[in-house]
């Protein structure tokens, strides 16, 4: 898994690429929590996520919780099939703010 950040004003877009599993979900968690300290809105791009397991989903849930306590926004977009399926299985897909495209996520 690789993450990279793109900033525009108060918004940070986190592009996540590859497989998210027990090996690297702690790194994703750290990136998300740090980014939330620095931006009013964190937008996570999951288009290139080939695989994500429950530890990766747990990192996203932690991001969501942190954003709620910071009163900032935490948004997902471009869910790959893998990401969509796991969020469905765990019944968490409606808990997140999810958009199809980056533009929708930025405009929301």
């Amino acid at each position, binding site marked *: 898994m690789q993450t990279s950040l793109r900033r525009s004003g108060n918004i940070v877009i986190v592009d996540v690429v590859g497989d998210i*599993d027990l090996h690297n979900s702690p790194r994703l968690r750290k990136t998300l929590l740090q980014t939330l300290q620095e931006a009013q809105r964190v937008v996570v791009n999951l288009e290139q996520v080939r695989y994500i*397991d*429950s530890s990766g989903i747990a990192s996203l849930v932690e991001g969501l919780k942190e954003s709620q306590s910071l009163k900032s926004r935490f948004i997902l977009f471009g869910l790959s099939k893998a990401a969509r399926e796991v969020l469905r*299985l*765990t019944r968490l897909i409606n808990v997140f703010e999810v958009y199809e495209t980056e533009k929708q996520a930025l405009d929301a």
Partner: protein
Amino acid sequence: MGLSLKLVLSSDPRLLGAVRGAVRELASGAGFAEEDCRAITLAVDEALTNIIRHAYDNRPDESVELTCRSLENGLEFILRDRGRPVDPAKVCARSLEAVTPGGLGTHIIRQIMDQVCYEPLPDGNQLRLVKYVNKS
């Protein structure tokens, strides 16, 4: 004739990707649709992740065995470890209605697999997972 592939690995999360690679191809070769291949791969990965985290408390140098077998109409996965036994009361213990980061793995496994059977062995633990083709 049934196919059989055994993987013996150390309990190191860096090996999960390689196991997934094997399981994904096995599932695809067994005739599962793409979405099922992804699901089966996820379930086996979650089972391994649980062994690493709970049976072995994240010690990376313990041993895990994963035996994959083709059935007439599906695939069977048997995971074996020599770590702490599973407390059945903790499996699928949380409600999926609550929004918390933990406790998702066993729910995922049960939702995907047609058979999920935790069994204590004299010298460790066994988890048997079965998925049938064309049965949802």
